[in-house]
Every structure is written in C-alpha cells, then in structure tokens.
C-alpha cells in the first residue's frame, strides 16, 4: 500500500473513531445516565466537542504527513504538530474535558443528606504522555534529518554516469575470444 493511500485510510479511521463516534455516542446514552453526568457537573457536550475537533486535527495532519515528502519541512512540522495534538488529546481525556486540571479530576455529587466526592489522580499518565511526546518529537527530527541526508546522498550520484562520454574505436575493439586449446592440436 502506498504512503498516500495509507494516510487516507488512517485519516478516515481517525475521523470515525475520534470524531464520528464521540458525536454519535451521547445520543445513545440512557436519560438516567445523562442526568447523573450532568448532576456530577461534567460538561459532556463540551468534552465531546473537544474530542471531535482533535479528531479532525489528527486526521488532517495524518493526510499532510502522507502527502508531504519525508525530507520536506512540512512533514517535520506536521509530525511535531501531530505529537502535540496527541498530548492535548491525552490531557483532555484524562482530565475529563478540563485540561487545566492536569489529570486530577474531582467529581462531586449531592445525594439525599450526603455528598459524594470522587477524586481521580491520573497526573502520572499526563507526565508520561509529555515524556512520550518529547521522545516522539526527537524521533521526528531524527527521521527528518535522516531523510534529508539520504536525499542529498542520492542527489550527488549522477543519474546517467556514462552520459557525455563517447566510445573510442579502440574501446570498441574487443579481445578475440578463443576456445581453450586442449594441447592435442
């Protein structure tokens, strides 16, 4: 499969998973669960909108990466942007829509005569995601440098090494080939 076709397929899958599915899923939630979510103070519509827009951004960047040459600055820019968008996605997902919490989410619900407060601390994964994205960016830069080096090496080799040279009559004279004598003649 060519790189371009691969990127188109990958972008389509990304759009399906990160944009179409999150936009469709809330309509399938049972009303009771929807009421619990809104009671807990979670902005499900805003959360879904954030995920969907990130899906569009990732799909677009996947297409750019598929169509741009690996040695072009556009490819490097798209790779770095893609890693950054992935980090944003992780941050938003682990913080349930409020990325400013950096992975620590507090959900509070008032029940009859009681208050239930749940705190989820996933900040370790936010830090891990930041490290991973930093490694990804370094990898993109190394890949880009490598692609450029390979390209310059390819450009130094002439495409037709014998172009411009003419054969001299003596070059055309091939040595006479004789069968090996057995020594009996």
């Amino acid at each position: 499969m060519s790189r371009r076709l691969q990127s188109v397929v990958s972008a389509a899958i990304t759009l399906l998973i990160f944009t179409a599915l999150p936009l469709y899923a809330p309509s399938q939630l049972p009303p009771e669960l929807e009421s619990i979510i809104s009671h807990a103070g979670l902005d499900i519509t805003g959360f879904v909108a954030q995920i969907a827009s990130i899906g569009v951004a990732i799909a677009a960047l996947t297409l750019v990466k598929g169509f741009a040459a690996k040695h072009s600055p556009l490819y490097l820019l798209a790779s770095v942007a893609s890693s950054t968008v992935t980090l944003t996605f992780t941050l938003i997902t682990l913080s349930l829509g409020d990325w400013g919490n950096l992975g620590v989410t507090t959900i509070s619900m008032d029940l009859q005569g009681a208050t239930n407060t749940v705190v989820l601390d996933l900040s370790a994964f936010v830090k891990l995601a930041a490290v991973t994205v930093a490694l990804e960016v370094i990898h993109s830069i190394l890949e880009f440098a490598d692609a450029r080096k390979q390209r310059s090496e390819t450009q130094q080799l002439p495409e037709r090494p014998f172009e411009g040279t003419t054969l001299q009559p003596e070059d055309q004279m091939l040595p006479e080939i004789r069968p090996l004598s057995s020594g009996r003649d």
Partner: protein
Amino acid sequence: MRAVRVFGLVVAAVQLASMIAFGASMYTILLVASSTASGDATAISVSIDETTGVGFLRLDTATRNEGLLGVNMKIGVYALDAEGERFADNSTSVHLEVGQEEPVSLTLRLPAGLIRRMLDGDGDCFEVTVELRTLNDMVGASNTMTYRGGGSA
C-alpha cells in the same frame, strides 16, 4: 538510519507500556473500588450507649483486590464540625496484593449528644473516606462520602 529506527521502536515501546500501565491501573482501581463500595461489603452503623452517654460510629468494610496490581488503601472515618473541620478521626491503611482480602473495622467514639446532632443534620456531620493508590502509588482515586444527616442516606 538504523539508529533512528531503533529509537522509533523504543518510543513505540514506551507508548505501549504506558497504555498497558494505564489499563491495568484503571482496571485495578475500578475493581477494588466497586468491591469495597458495594452495599454488601460496607456497612455504617450508629449506636448510643445511654448509660455511659457515649455514641459509636462504626464502619465495617471488606476490602478485596481482584485487580491486576497491588493496591495501597487508606480508609478513614471522620467527625466534622459545621465549618467542615475534622475534629475526631479514626483511620487505617492496608496494602492489598492481587487476590487478597482484608476486613476493616473502624469505630469513632463520640458523645451521644453529638451523634444525635449529626443524625439530625444539625451542623456537625461525619465523613467516610476511601483512598486507593496503585502502580507504585503513582495513580490514585479517592471517594469521600459526607453524611449531613436529616436525610435517608
């Protein structure tokens, strides 16, 4: 070229490892929390000894780890004043290995009048906190239930 490829594989391995760690810790936290918070596993009872004028707030829970990683748990019962400040507490910490069960029982001794005020929802209240930490204490969740009294909770 080869070094770049190896580096790419290392990055992919780190990503995969973090995904596995996330899945395993979330699975563990969900299972331990649900087994501890279920109605059969946890009971809160209040009793008053009229002769001594002492009230007892008792929490009995059966902690169980059916997850994939070891868990550190801290369970506490607290008495809070009208401003939400804790003025009496009893808490304990347990470490649960995978498959381990540990019953926990905590009692808070308070004046009977105070317990009555708590049950009536008259300013003072009590709180039950369950804190879970896994993956070498890097990932955690806590559930705090504050009972204000006067309701059916």
